[in-house]
């Protein structure tokens, strides 16, 4: 006998089982070892090898707190270690309103309050216009934004006296979710290292740029971020989700197999 249920009931059963399966690692930690990806090491080395006194621009475009934003936070943690040691300087900008909320939420985690604002770091806030904003900032940040997120004119911020265009930067990091094309067009190929944080399934999208040397290194959420957290020695949400991700991916594969089995059994019955 083959079950024949309405589509919404089948969907609901699949989703309910998913919740149960995803909850298993919370009750029984699986402790699956997390490997550190070669690309993670390359990203780590890129930041560690930046020359002293360099300015890093971090461009946030989207807020997926539990996935992509954790990668952004982890990259910023490594950068902020060097900022605290007065080796690097950080300028953060956002292209959407979502990441503004993310920065507010991550304020204590990143310990931004312990840094000297205007000297060690600047928060430009929202620069609307998507790719247009990126192009404007790369060409002349002072004409793209006259004040920072708090309304302070850029002329009153010591750090901004040294940052006028992309040529003044030591590194550009952008956090995306899907297409790497806009930042590669606007920030890439200008002799400045570019680090991209992007979704896992965009790895094939990024590979042409990686091989062309436009993207220096990339970070993806999930396993790669968990490995990165392990490398930094600061375990976070990505590590705690690593087990749950493993289990849910296995469940998704099981769903695919079950779907095929049910489909072919129903066809045979007809």
């Amino acid at each position, binding site marked *: 006998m083959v079950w024949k249920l309405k589509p919404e009931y089948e969907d609901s059963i699949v989703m309910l089982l998913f919740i149960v399966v995803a909850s298993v690692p919370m009750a029984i930690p699986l402790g699956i070892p997390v490997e550190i990806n070669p690309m993670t090491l390359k990203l780590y080395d890129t930041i560690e090898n930046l020359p002293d006194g360099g300015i890093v621009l971090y461009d946030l475009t989207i807020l997926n707190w539990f996935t992509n934003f954790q990668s952004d936070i982890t990259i910023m943690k490594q950068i902020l270690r060097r900022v605290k040691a007065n080796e690097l300087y950080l300028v953060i900008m956002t292209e959407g309103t979502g990441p503004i909320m993310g920065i507010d939420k991550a304020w204590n985690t990143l310990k931004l309050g312990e840094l000297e604002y205007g000297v060690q770091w600047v928060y430009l806030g929202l620069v609307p216009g998507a790719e247009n*904003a990126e192009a*404007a900032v790369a*060409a002349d940040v002072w004409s793209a934004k006259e004040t920072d997120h708090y309304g302070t004119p850029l002329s009153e911020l010591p750090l901004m006296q040294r940052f006028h265009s992309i040529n003044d930067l030591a590194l550009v990091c952008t956090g995306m979710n899907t297409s790497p094309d806009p930042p590669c067009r606007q920030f890439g190929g200008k002799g400045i290292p570019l680090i991209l944080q992007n979704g896992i399934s965009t790895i*094939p999208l990024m590979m*042409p740029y990686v091989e062309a040397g436009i993207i220096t290194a990339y970070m993806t959420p999930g396993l790669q971020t968990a490995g990165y957290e392990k490398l930094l020695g600061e375990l976070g949400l990505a590590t705690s989700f690593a087990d749950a991700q*493993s289990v849910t*991916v296995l469940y998704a594969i099981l769903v*695919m197999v079950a779907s095929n089995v049910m489909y072919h059994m129903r066809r045979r019955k007809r």
Partner: protein
Amino acid sequence: MSLYIIVMVFLIFSAYTGVASNFAADVRSWGIAIATFAALIGVINISYLHILKLYHRRKGWQYSIVMFTCFIVYFVVAYVYQPGYNWIISNLSIPLGAAFLSGFNTLGVIFRGSRARSIWSVLILFSVIMTALLSVSIGPVIWPGIVDIARWINDYPTTGVFRAVTIGIGIGLLMLVVRAILGMEKSYLGEL
């Protein structure tokens, strides 16, 4: 339309020759200002729609009251009481956003759509399973060979296809540039 063409030709000219690059940067920043104004259109429209709904007591008018209440509260709290604003973000906005963009619906799509009807779809399913296992820590534990196979799939066939489509998208953009520069853009963008 002619203003649009002039600006576009100037920006392309500046990009290739380096002439007047500072002014070109200023022009791009005008676009940012215009984008900010466009956000106002949305706020005005959504308010107008919900006011009409309330006035005519259309279906779901109660949700319009909820919408206005949330809008006003969030707006006021953001300026007046910072801890409240942080609480709304951390405990309402971010979790709700994550819930809506969660993978539940992906599972429904996978369940319904991943049915192998030919040898090619079996191959595709195989590569899907390999690449999915590459992205989680249990993949290499099950079989270390998964890493090599999945990386090969990502680095060669998939990258080749993605390169081709990226080129296609770039040329598609050029199509719009040509039509706009020549004043032949007949769709709504050209009638502005």
